[in-house]
């Protein structure tokens, strides 16, 4: 008998008195010890499906018009709270995407884990303490006294995710639901966590329901795959079959959506647009009553970088390596030491006012398309801003025409300029950010993780757009990303950063094909094979 059997399941949400279907008639089964992956883009209904198995949706706002969910032959739909308590955490546990917000910041690690033990297993304090040590050992965390008494903020992202897994495993569940378990983590940590999950599955014989948007993870982890879009499972097949011979158009689209292609080729002897020599950005660490500076965080430590017209320099590294700081320092948005030259002229010592005319030539696009657009300004006002600074007020009609032309260039309807940013999807918002940078016809753009917050298929579109714009206007890019696949599709030269220093640099092919240092090798293996070195 299958562990989980979902038949004809539909989920609706009541919004303003109307039932809005979120998931329509899906069916799947999970056997003991196997892994099923649900793949889909944001809003496809995959997380809702997972939550419905645990009956964790906001009932009665959510409802199941049809279908059944059998856990070990028992239909959980409509089951009372007492019954569900026995299933949740005991038979089925769940790990979430964001390990910071899923842990209670006020409880120590020990308390987080032994809570389930005390509630579900009825263990006494001593037994629970022993079990917590066992569990931490299982997920590869050393159970020292310090670690047990640590609070979530004292752990790194990967360690927090391990604690989450330890909590989920506390009662030896038959099924582990992993909802985007590695999305918030760095690539090398992601590889470690995936390896850990696989190993635990083999050792404990539990089934995993993996929810993800990353096909690479699916291929590595799952036995069977369900592809979901708009609340419907469009294709369900064994993993190998799905990857080698996809049947549905949407699956094909997803498989092809990986950022592909090569950077646009241009003349080698292009003029240098911007260069930074021996850049240093130090943040002081202040301690004591008098706030004396005791040490510095060396966010960017003696780094030189140069970008030529029409070329892209990719900056690669894990979070906290100082990539974004370097970008901001180059634009003089952060104070730095060292020399910065734009088109051969030093700009390091220019005042803010002297720098203003130059600002139209050097631009930036940020990672999060939600926080980088002011929610109170219309799209037109956002894109228009640079024009107002650099070209005065001028003719309103002309300006509107230029805005709508620029918007169309990045693939947004020009008539949309009177709408607010929140009416647009993430990908569209990122296009608006690009339009804002583009309208001044800059020569150099810092792209700070422009694709990281977007769905896979949208990422590919944005990469294509950026490449088209580069070849059209001969733009110089500084492309900051932790996503090596995207960097490979964009960059001519790559800098690998770690802890504020350059670990390795060189032409893109050389870095990707024959990395020299161990760190770069580990990074490549984690990114492309999802494996640790």
């Amino acid at each position, binding site marked *: 008998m299958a562990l989980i059997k979902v038949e004809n399941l539909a989920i609706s949400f009541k919004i303003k008195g109307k039932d809005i279907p979120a998931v329509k008639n899906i069916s799947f089964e999970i056997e003991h010890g196997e892994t099923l992956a649900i793949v889909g883009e944001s809003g496809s209904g995959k997380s809702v499906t997972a939550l419905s198995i645990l009956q964790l949706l906001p009932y009665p706002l959510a409802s199941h018009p049809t279908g059944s969910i059998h856990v070990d032959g028992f239909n959980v739909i409509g089951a009372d709270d007492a019954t569900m308590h026995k299933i949740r955490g005991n038979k089925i546990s769940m790990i979430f995407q964001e390990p910071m917000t899923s842990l209670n910041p006020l409880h120590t690690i020990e308390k987080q884990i032994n809570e389930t033990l005390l509630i579900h297993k009825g263990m006494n304090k001593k037994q629970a303490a022993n079990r917590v040590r066992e569990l931490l050992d299982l997920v590869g965390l050393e159970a020292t006294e310090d670690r047990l008494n640590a609070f979530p903020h004292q752990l790194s992202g990967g360690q927090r995710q391990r604690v989450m897994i330890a909590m989920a495993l506390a009662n030896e569940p038959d099924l582990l639901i992993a909802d985007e378990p590695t999305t918030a983590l760095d690539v090398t940590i992601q590889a470690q966590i995936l390896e850990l999950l696989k190993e635990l599955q083999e050792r404990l014989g539990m089934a995993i329901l993996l929810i993800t948007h990353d096909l690479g993870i699916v291929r590595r982890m799952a036995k069977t795959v369900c592809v979901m879009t708009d609340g419907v499972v469009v294709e369900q097949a064994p993993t190998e079959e799905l990857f080698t011979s996809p049947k549905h158009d949407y699956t094909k689209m997803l498989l092809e959506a990986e950022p592909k292609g090569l950077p646009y080729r241009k003349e080698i002897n292009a003029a240098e647009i911007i260069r930074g020599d021996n850049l240093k950005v130090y943040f002081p660490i202040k301690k004591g009553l008098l706030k004396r500076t005791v040490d510095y965080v060396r966010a960017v430590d003696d780094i030189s970088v140069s970008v030529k017209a029409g070329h892209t320099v990719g900056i690669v590294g894990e979070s906290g390596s100082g990539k974004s700081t370097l970008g901001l320092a180059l634009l003089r948005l952060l104070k730095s030491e060292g020399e910065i030259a734009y088109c051969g002229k030093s700009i390091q010592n220019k005042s803010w006012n002297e720098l203003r005319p130059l600002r139209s030539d050097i631009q930036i696009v940020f990672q999060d398309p939600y926080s*980088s657009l002011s929610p109170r300004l219309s799209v037109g006002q956002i894109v228009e801003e640079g024009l107002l600074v650099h070209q005065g007020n001028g003719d309103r009609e002309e300006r509107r025409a230029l805005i709508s032309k620029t918007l169309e260039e990045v693939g947004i309807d020009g008539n949309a300029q009177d709408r607010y940013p929140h009416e647009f999807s993430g990908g569209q918002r990122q296009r608006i*950010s690009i339009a804002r940078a583009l309208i001044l016809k800059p020569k150099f753009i810092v792209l700070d993780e422009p694709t990281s917050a977007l769905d896979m298929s949208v990422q590919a579109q944005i990469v294509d757009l950026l490449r088209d714009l580069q070849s059209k206007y001969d733009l110089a890019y500084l492309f900051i990303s932790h996503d090596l696949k995207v960097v490979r599709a964009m960059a001519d030269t790559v800098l690998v950063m770690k802890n504020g220093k350059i670990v390795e640099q060189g032409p893109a092919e050389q870095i990707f094909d024959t990395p020299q240092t161990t760190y770069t090798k580990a990074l490549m293996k984690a990114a492309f094979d999802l494996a640790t070195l």
Partner: protein
Amino acid sequence: MQLSPINQRRLENFKANRRGYWSMILFLGLFVISLFAEVVANDKPLLISHKGELYTPFLVTYPETAFGGDFETEADYRDPFVAELIEESGGWTIWPIIRYSYTTINYDLKSPAPSSPDLENWLGTDDQGRDVLARVIYGYRISVAFGLILTILSSIIGVSAGAVQGYFGGATDLIFQRLLEIWGGMPSLYILIILAAMIEPTFTILLGLLLLFSWPSLVGVVRAEFLRSRNFDYVRAARALGVRDRVIIFKHLLPNSMVSALTFLPFVLTGSIVSLTSLDFLGLGLPPGSPSLGELLAQGKANLQAPWLGITAFMVLSVMLTLAFFMQEGIRDAFDPRKTFK
């Protein structure tokens, strides 16, 4: 005037909130009517025809001799003698709906003042024989005007102070915050009472005095909003575009902190009206004889046998404050782009 599409949308959002919309119509409607209080309640006629000539006594001062009387002083149109003079010449008179101004004393009361409501004085008279309805109409005008002006002035000062503190932060913020704490620690009511006792209070002086203590209420919210949003990516993007500090403050930060400032405005407005009323109630407010709701409340307290005084003042105040509150609640919601309406 053509509204920009965004403002049109805000207007639509505002109209969709029916409670706020109707409150605004009532509140402003009543205010507009009270602005023309001289036409609604006055002891001088609007128009007089006398010997083929037209007179507008509510605008122009005519001596009694103009109508064939004896005195060089202004004609008392409520005097039966003057009315008779006009009548005899074949003329006619158009009176306002209420034939009393806020200072007019009705000497023909059937019972001693304060007299109860009747057909002549719809809401009765106060303890000096003045018509309560007339005084309420004039009092509403003063209260609302005072409240609105004080709110506008204190939000300008408060928002600017909060914006400067939040945007520049650091030492500026630190010094301002300490000053505000000292300022906030002062016993404002006693200072007002002492100052009001020293200076003869007028409308403007009272406005200034209350302004001294009402502006800090907005500083905190605006400062917090600025501190939060000055590190947002869209502010960074604006800095990368070379936008000036002043423009960033006005265009990016201010609109985004407006909702929290607007959230506080109803309290500032109602608070302003209430503090004027309470000063009047204590007899420290507007000069004696001014039509004020606070003074009416005080009379109600002094004349418990005449409940129409207290009840009238209470009803007017509560309706006014409630309408003002609903109105601004609607405005606040209309400016919030994330709020969706049915």
